[in-house]
Structures are given as structure tokens and as C-alpha cells.
């Protein structure tokens, strides 16, 4: 996104907070969202404005040269352009966003979304949807709902709200743009990402007093090598003077507890082990299987 785009998004966010009625940017609303005349807006496009100027010149010329044929046809083209505004409205009027389905993914991956659009009783051509910087274009036959597929990027664990989408059309002549903002009140659960090279889970009986490793929070920058440490973090020069390998610890961000826990839950689940998960507020007793896995991951995703 360009700096201008960032600035504009900031302005929009501010405007939405302060002047919701003016900006017409809607707050989240429950599904299904049918479009109707109170929430469809129409403005001429740049081409529409330019064409209007051209038509005005043509009308003036026709009047000046008292050329009635040209006047008649110019009026005809102008009226067709004006009529295309109504067609654009009808293309949007009655469309409904009926359902959104999402799969669960871990943070950082794109979440595949399906969006159901019900066309109502009318066949609609050339609907377009802007969502998360992507543009989808589609046509819907009367009475046959369509399912759009797209992927949303995720950034962090927890519930992710659906971004605001814009459903619009410039059908049929590209002279008018009719649009409506859709902001479905729908959340997608994003699981925490598993730590890549974390330590294996320790047996509860041994090493009880060792404490959980917290790389990075010690002031010392070096520590002993542990299996699983990435090779590029090894301080080779310093290690040459010692009998053991030293690892630079500062550059690695402190992994959150959830990363490591989700990594362990994943490993246990994939390996078919039985596991239990103890969180500060609740305890999942020893169990195994998909349901146990999702329950644990949900709890981890929603950890404060």
C-alpha cells in the first residue's frame, strides 16, 4: 500500500469512528445482508463525467447548426446513458450476502473463505467485489446462488473479524458505479502458529526445577547449544574457543507460550499420543483425537 493509501485508510478509520452516518461505512451487521435502495449508492465514473461533457458539446453543436437529426441522436445516447444508471441500480438491488464459511488456519497462513451470494429473482451481470485488496468479478443467474472463493491473510491468533467488502458494479456502460459496503459480523478463528524449532516437551517428573526456557530474556547473549537450534544462530567463531557450541540468543524473539504449546499439541496430535493441556484458567484432561485437538487449539487461540 502506498503512503497515500495508508493516509487515506487512516482518514477513513477516523471518519468511521466519528461520523458513521456521514461516511455510510457500516458497522458490522448480521448475516444475511440483503442489498436494498437505502444502502446502494451511485455516482458517475470518470468516464461517465467525460462522456457527459462530450454529449453537452454535441448538443451545443447540434443546436448551433440547427441540426435536428444530430440533436435527436445525441439525446438518444444521453438518455441511454441515464437509463444505464437505473440498470446499474437494478443489478445490485436484491442481491444478498447469505453466508460466509471459513476454515481454521494457523496465524500467518491465508485463510480460505467462501462467500455465498444469492442473486434473488434477477440475473445479474458483471458484479464485482473488492475485498482485502483483491477484486472479484462474477455473474449470477437468477435464482442460482453463487459461491465466491478467496483467501484472506491472517496476522495473529484469535478471532479475526471479516474485513469490510465492497460489492459494486459499473454495468452496463461503465458510466455509473453503483456500490454498497458489506461488513458482515462474522469472525474467523485463527489458531496460534506452532513454534518451529522449539524444545521437546519435558517429562513432568524429571528436571522439575529447571524452569521453562525463556531464550532471549537473559541479558547474556550466548548460551549452550541445544538440539533443535537453527544452525545460523550458532556463534561459530566463539564456539571455536570452547569445547561446546555457543548459540546467539538475542536475535531470536521470545516465543510466546502459545506457540510452543500449540507446537506440542500439534506434534502429539499427529503422532497419535494422548496429552493434556494445563492453562492458567483451565485444564484439558488427558485425551486424544480431533475433537480434543480443536478444543485445545481454540483455547490456545483465545488465550488473553
Amino acid at each position: 500500500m502506498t503512503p497515500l493509501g495508508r493516509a487515506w485508510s487512516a482518514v477513513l478509520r477516523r471518519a468511521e469512528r466519528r461520523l458513521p452516518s456521514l461516511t455510510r461505512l457500516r458497522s458490522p451487521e448480521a448475516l444475511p445482508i440483503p442489498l436494498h435502495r437505502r444502502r446502494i449508492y451511485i455516482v458517475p465514473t470518470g468516464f461517465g463525467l467525460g462522456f457527459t461533457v462530450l454529449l453537452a458539446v454535441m448538443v451545443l453543436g447540434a443546436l448551433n447548426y440547427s441540426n435536428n437529426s444530430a440533436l435527436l441522436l445525441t439525446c438518444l445516447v444521453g438518455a441511454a446513458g441515464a437509463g444505464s444508471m437505473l440498470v446499474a441500480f437494478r443489478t445490485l438491488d436484491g442481491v444478498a450476502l447469505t453466508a460466509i464459511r471459513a476454515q481454521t488456519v494457523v496465524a500467518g497462513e491465508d485463510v480460505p473463505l467462501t462467500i455465498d451470494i444469492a442473486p434473488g429473482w434477477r440475473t445479474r451481470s458483471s458484479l464485482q467485489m473488492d475485498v482485502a485488496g483483491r477484486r472479484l468479478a462474477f455473474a449470477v443467474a437468477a435464482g442460482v446462488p453463487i459461491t465466491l472463493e478467496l483467501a484472506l491473510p491472517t496476522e495473529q491468533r484469535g478471532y479475526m473479524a471479516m474485513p469490510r467488502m465492497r460489492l459494486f458494479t459499473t454495468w452496463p456502460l461503465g458510466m455509473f458505479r453503483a456500490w454498497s459496503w458489506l461488513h458482515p459480523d462474522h469472525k474467523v478463528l485463527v489458531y496460534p502458529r506452532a513454534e518451529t524449532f522449539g524444545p521437546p516437551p519435558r517429562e513432568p517428573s524429571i528436571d522439575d526445577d529447571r524452569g521453562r526456557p525463556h531464550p532471549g530474556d537473559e541479558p547474556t547473549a550466548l548460551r549452550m547449544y541445544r538440539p533443535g537450534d537453527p544452525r545460523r544462530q550458532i556463534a561459530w567463531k566463539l564456539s571455536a574457543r570452547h569445547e561446546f557450541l555457543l548459540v546467539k540468543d538475542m536475535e531470536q524473539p521470545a516465543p510466546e507460550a502459545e506457540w510452543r504449546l500449540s507446537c506440542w499439541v500439534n506434534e502429539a496430535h499427529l503422532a497419535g499420543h494422548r496429552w493434556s493441556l494445563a492453562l492458567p484458567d483451565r485444564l484439558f484432561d488427558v485425551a486424544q483425537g480431533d475433537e480434543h485437538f480443536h478444543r485445545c487449539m481454540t483455547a490456545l487461540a483465545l488465550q488473553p
Partner: protein
Amino acid sequence: MNFLYALTHKVREAPISAGTFNLVCITMACVVAVHASHLPPWLTLLLGIALLASHWRRRHRPGKTPMWLKLPLTLGLLAGIVLWYGNLFGREPGSAFAVGLLVLKTFECETARDVRVAVAFACFALMAALLSDQGLVVTVAVALAIVPALMSLRSLEPGQAQRTIAQAALPSLGLLAAALPLALMAFLFVPRLSEPLWGAPAADTAKPGLSSSMSPGDLTELLTDDSAAMRVSFDGVAPRPDQRYFRAFVMWNFDGRRWDHGYGRRGEVAGLLPQGPVATYEITLEATHRRTLPALDVPMAAPEGARLSADRELSSNDRIDEVRRYRVSSALGYGLQADLDDSTRRLGLQLPPNFDPRARALAQQWRQTFGQNDEGIARAALGLFHDGGFRYTLAPVPLGRDSIDDFLFNTREGFCEHYASAFTFLMRAAGIPARVVTGYQGGFYNRLGQYLLVRQSNAHAWSEVWLAGRGWVRFDPTGAVRPERIAADGTAAGDGSGPWYQPAWLQAARNRWDIVNRLWAQGVTGFDALRQRSLLQPFGVREAPPSMLVTILASGICLLAAIGLGWALYRRPEGDVAQRALARLKARLVRRGLASRASEAPGHYFSRAARFWPARRKELESLATLYNHLTYARSEPAPELARRFARMAREFRPPRVVK
């Protein structure tokens, strides 16, 4: 906001599809076609080739057109137009250049933006074609050419269902048809300018038409021109074909080769003594860019805005740059200028010295034979043309220095102007005052439209000879050679061997078709400020001022907009009769205190209602039973049952309950 959105979220423009490009090419071909009539033929041909080449290039060598191709093409177009027209400014070279540029634009139609620009200016060029000809055929052609233009715009929109060209054409036609009422409304009520805002339409190409001088061979171009010169509607019966002589110019001066009208003789208007029927008629004259108003022999008085010359030619006070209508009365039988004063007599006898000795000798010989019988001499001259082996042709051999001698004794072929010229010369040489008159003769009488269509090819030249006691008498020597030229109804001046592309039946069909042109000219082309102001006469408004027209226009647009909005906002009611009746009933019950729940079956809602209004339990139960029966008992319930349910639901009006 959308503009800014587009600015911040740069969506890359995709290249246009092959279908769109085909439509753009069709649009451009239409533009070239409607301009073809006034573009130089070589340019039309080259533009056609360029269009094909552009199409071929996109198909086989896709990608951007290199500059080394575009630049020479554009410069070549510029050079060609400047060489042909002499400059680049003015209507003709300007529109030729615009059409050329549009065709070249197809070489760089890569994005949707290019297509939109091209289509918008194609619309402009289409309208410009109407500046040179606003006839019905061209107008319809331009209107049809708008369809591919709109289709190109439609095809730019992403995410459409696949369609064939015919399926894609229908909605565009439908859009135009739906736009027609609004367009007509605007056409009728947009106030016309009574004065042009800037330069009046320039007659930068002299339209072919009668001119004020005549030398052998001048009229050839005119006599093969089939465009309409004027249309005449008579009050009462139209005069006989042999009386349909419309005089335009009376020519006195002869220099041995050329007859000249000069500036029209001023002075006292020649006296007219009507003898016989008088025809009153209205002429609708096409723009001539001259002043002369043709009128049937002989006009009795000048219409408003025109005057009579000494020789009873009508000329308008201003140049005729638009279609002009005027009413005239003419005496079909007449005695014109019974007394000839000396100066006029001298003028009617003047001949250039040292020309055409043999013709003079022949005239002197006639004078000796017939003595004082002037009419006898005229008859002898007609007899010479009739029996002397003369031939009527539109392509005579050129004449030498002594043009009359050459024609009379050597070539013996020619058309009206040769005959009129030679006849008048002979009369003058014999000492009889004579003059040449040019104008139109004949015309096609359209019975359906009750009017006479006079084409440019009806142009004619004849003689007037002054006979003592009778005044100026019309003699038509062409009639002696080719009587059907005068008598036939609607035959143009053709010499029987017309060009292969104008067979007789086509000519006849075109004559009948002309009524449409006339209606078009009356209803559309001639709808000017004057006629617009009298538009409301049937409603008792004698003269509507522009402010009233604007008011009517505004209210008409509002009315049509309301109809359009009604159409746009109309939603087909959902569900069947029973479901709609239930929905209305629920809405009413909600207003009376019983809330509806989203996830509630109708049966449950009815039972809740029965608890809410215990007194009406019976009715509600029967409603619930009927509804369940309608919905679940059969796949297609009987319609009368549904109507009964609807009626019961309508009539169920429980009292309001306030909790």
C-alpha cells in the same frame, strides 16, 4: 470517494478481450461508412484497409504497436488530407482527419481506457456525419451505428456470462428503445436557438444547383443528380405535366457561348394578365445557398421575405442556407408584358457580333420566307429541331467556337440547354425578342403524399419569345426533339441510356420512397425555433416562450424519471399467494402486539397467537390448518384454496393488545 479508492488501490487494467476489439472495429467501420459519402474515395479505401490491417495485426502479432508504425501512419494521414483539401481546418478536412485518427486508434486499443476514449469519440464522429447530410437514411444508419458502440462499452465490463454477438446486441437495442421517450421529450422541448451562437454553417462546398449562367454542358452534372431540389404541394389539383415549368433565372446576355443572368433586372415588374386557372401551392425548397426561389410560371406576387424582379423571378432577401418553405400563386395561362419598351426590346435582340454566321443566315432566310409572321418563324425553328435529325443526349460532343453553328449544322446532338440556346439565338437573329429561362420542369407527383417531387435532374432550360399582342410566350425546343421529356410524369432528364446502376424500376421505387424523406424533412429536419414555439397550439398556447418549454421539459423529465425509478425499484413479490398473505398478516399482528420470531414455524406462530387472543382461537386454528394444508399437503395446492386463505388472513383483524 470511489475515485480516491481507485487511486489508493491500484487495480491493474487487464488487456481487452478479442470480442471487445472486434466490436470496436465494427464501430469504426460504421463511422467510416456513414462518412463515406463525403470522404475522398481514396481515403475511404485506405481507412478500410487500415482497419483490416489493424484487425489482422491484433490477431497475429499481438502486443503494442511499435512507434515506427504508428508515427508514419498518422503523418501520412495528415499529409494526405492537407494535400487533398489544401488545409486541415474546416468541416470537411476536419471530419476526415477525425475519422482517420479514430481508425488509427484501433492500433493502440490495449486497455479498457483506450476503448472508452475511442468509443466516446466515435460517437462524436457519428454525429459529425449528420452535419453534411441529415436525411432519414443517414440518421437511421448513425442510430444503428450507436449499437456496436454501446456493445463495445458493455463488453468491457468484467465478469459477464458468455454470449453470442446477437445475444449481446439485444440489451443494447433495448436500452436505446427504452431511452427513446426521454430522447423524444428532450428533442421536442429543448429550446432551439433562433440565432446561431457561433459561425453559421458554411457552404464550403458549393452545392450543385441551378446557376445564374448557362453554357453548353453546364447542366450535365445537375441532370444526373437525383437529389431532391424541392417539394411542391398544391391547393387543389396539381397542374398538368406540360404546365409544370418552374422558372428560376431569366437570361438575357449572350456572349457567343454563355448565357448570363447578371444580377436580375431591376425596375418595374413586367405586367401580368392572368388568363385561365391560377395555381396556389407551397414549395419546400432544399438549401441552395443562393437566393433564387423557383416558382411555377408565372408567379403573381412575391411571398413574404422575397421580391419579384422585373422579369418575374422570385428572389429571397437572404441566402437560403436551410430548408425554406414559401407559398406562391401562379397564373398558368397568362399574357406577360404585352408592351415591350425599346430598351428591353434591344436587350432581347442583342447578339454578339462575328459569331455563328450560318445560323444568322438561316434566320434571315426564315424572315424572308415568313414575312412578319413571328410565330411562323418560331414554328419553323421547332420544326427544324423535330425533323432535322437532332438527337437528345446527355453526353454530346463538345462544340467549337461558333457553338450555335456547330450544334445546328454539325453535331446535332445535345440536351435542353443546347436547344434553348440555339432556339433563342435563331429568334434573335430573325429579329424577334427572345430570352432563355432556366428552372425546373416536370417532377414526380406522389399520389400518396399529394405532392410533387422535383429533383435536381429535373433542371431544364427553355425559351421565351415576345410575340406582338401576346407578350412573352414560352417555347420549349427540347419538347420538339424529345416530347416525353416534357410530358412524362416524373421521368428525369435521362436520355434513355441511364447509368446501369439506376434502372427504371429503382427510379420509380425511389420516387415513391421520397414521401418518407418528405415526412422526415417536415417532422424532424425542419423542426426549428418557429415550429417549436407553435408546438403547443393544439393546447391553446399560441406561442410558447422558451421558459415554458424548459418548464415542460423539466416536468417531463421528472415524470419519465419517476417511471424509470418505479421500474428500477420494483421488486417481484416473493413466494406464492399464501406466503405473501401470511407475511402481511404477520406484519399486522406485530403492529397489534404479537412479536414475530425469526426461527419460528407458522404453526407455532399461530398457536402463540391463539394464546394471545383467546377469543379468536377458532379463527386462528382454522387459519393454521388451512396454511399447513396448503403448504404441506400437496406439491401444487389448488389456487382457490390459496385465495381463500388469503381472504381469511386479510379479514382477520384482532384487537390491539397493550402489554
